[in-house]
């Protein structure tokens, strides 16, 4: 009787209420993940600090590159600072809060995916928020600092700064969904953590290089087939030239990769077979 009443109440929820409910639960998961990560204070600080130092190295590498070659195709040290800052910021946001997209393969492999699958909330959102990465907070802090330095060096106007900020959500969406797609390899191949990681590197590696050096078919491939330029170079070019067309491309790609990820995840889940792992969840 009570169950029937509950089902009736649930079905009476409006779409907006459902979305609010999903987002509210997602927010709680994120808060719990971050609180758990911050519990080990020294480890937390070391990971954040270590990641900032780690990121400095990539900036140094490309500054040295442009020191040797000078400005190439409109790209110099200044643009590289913008690129690395924007990438670190979006990567940090994407994986400080939604690292489950990268860890999905591990859950499939060790059998804990069962418990995620049985969650009464939206599976996609639950997968994304199941884990957080502490070091990604370091990326986020580094990204904010470097983007600020870029805005100052490039004398960005308020419109350009707002444009840069508006590009964070679509780029984070591309990163999260591409990571989820690469993690879905786990549905098809056992013990594929390294393979998933390497597949993700195929998008992320080239995104860290100055996109001014990708021309012709290479540029097309890294924009459409693998969205590397869309998460790095294109946003920086769009902001520098106030190019709304490029901003539009980034948003279209974000929607496209979101839909592809949903499709791949649905196909993968259909293939999934429970290993009947038993254990206590604390």
């Amino acid at each position, binding site marked *: 009787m009570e169950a029937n009443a509950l089902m009736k109440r649930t079905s009476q929820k409006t779409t907006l209420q459902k979305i609010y409910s999903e987002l509210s639960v997602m927010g709680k998961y994120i808060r719990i993940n971050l609180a758990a990560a911050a519990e*080990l204070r*020294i*480890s937390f600080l*070391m*990971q954040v*600090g*270590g*990641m900032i*130092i*780690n990121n*400095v*190295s*990539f900036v*140094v*590498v*490309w500054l*040295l*590159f442009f*020191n*040797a*070659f*000078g400005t*190439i*195709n409109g790209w110099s040290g200044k643009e590289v600072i913008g690129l690395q800052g924007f990438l670190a910021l979006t990567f940090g946001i994407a994986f400080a809060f939604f690292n489950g997209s990268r860890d999905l393969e591990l859950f499939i492999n060790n059998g804990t995916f069962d418990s995620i699958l049985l969650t009464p909330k939206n599976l996609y959102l639950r997968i994304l928020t199941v884990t957080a990465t502490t*070091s990604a907070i370091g990326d986020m802090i580094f990204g904010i600092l470097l983007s600020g330095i870029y805005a100052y060096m490039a004398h960005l106007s308020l419109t350009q700064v707002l444009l840069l900020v508006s590009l964070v959500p679509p780029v984070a969406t591309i990163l999260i969904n591409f990571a989820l797609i690469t993690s879905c390899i786990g549905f098809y*191949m056992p*013990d*594929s953590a*390294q*393979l998933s990681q*390497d597949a993700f*590197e*195929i998008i992320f*590696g*080239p995104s860290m*290089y*100055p996109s001014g*050096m*990708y*021309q012709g078919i*290479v540029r097309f491939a890294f924009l459409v087939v693998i969205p590397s330029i869309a998460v790095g170079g294109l946003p920086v070019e769009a902001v520098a030239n106030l190019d709304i067309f490029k901003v539009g491309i980034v948003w279209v790609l974000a929607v496209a990769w979101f839909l592809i990820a949903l499709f791949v995840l649905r196909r993968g889940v259909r293939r999934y077979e429970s290993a009947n792992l038993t254990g206590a969840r604390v």
Partner: protein
Amino acid sequence: MSKYLYAYFLSVKEALYYPKKLQTSAIIVPFRILMMLVIYTYAFHYIGRSVNGIDVAIAVWSIAIYHLLLYMQFRGVFRTIDEEVRKGTFELQLNKPYHYLAYKFWEQFGKGLLNFVMSAVVAVPILLLFTHGFPSTTSTPRFLYALILAAGGTMVSAGLYILIALPSLWINDARPFFWVVDKAILIFGGAYIPLALLPSSFQTFASLTPFGAPMFATQMFNPGFLSSWPMLLIVQLFWVAVFFVLIRIVFSKAQKRLSINGG
């Protein structure tokens, strides 16, 4: 010694059991090399000249050697030791009839071999095709000296990564050490920019510190390599000796500190 060689061959065999992983490594490194090829071809074409005696072929081959040698080096030993300390399997292995670190050394050495071979088999033809053969400075003596430096570099990297893995026994998470060291090797080893293209102060730092030493072999195509390689070898031997002593001290302290809870 035979038990360590057994660990080595066991790792090689284990790698053979996962052919898909090997296939992946045969894609990723050549992919990185192709990216560098695209970038450096464009950059040199754009400026229309060589830089410090380095042309496209030398730059790309140097970077390719870096990425190939990475498989023969000891980045992975950090993760192994760090994980074993966290999981508690480290203590169990100390009771075994072998030296823990020596065993990990040979195990890691075996793990990297097949990945190195697979990557090289795919990457070298790509390089030969796109750079129209070997760089103009290639010669047999350079190749032999580079082999010696590659072996020396492997030993330096083993020392460095084992040394930074041992603090896992004291602190909760030693990964920040790994990130810093790993990225220092990335810069001073020439992962993205050949050493000869760096400013002279960076070159000097790379030539003297343990961060450049693991990858001295990448300099084999540089114009001045034939005169500089003996000095590079001496630097490598120096760091191997330093790390050997430091690891012995830190490992003995770690063993004294270790407390095993029954259960």
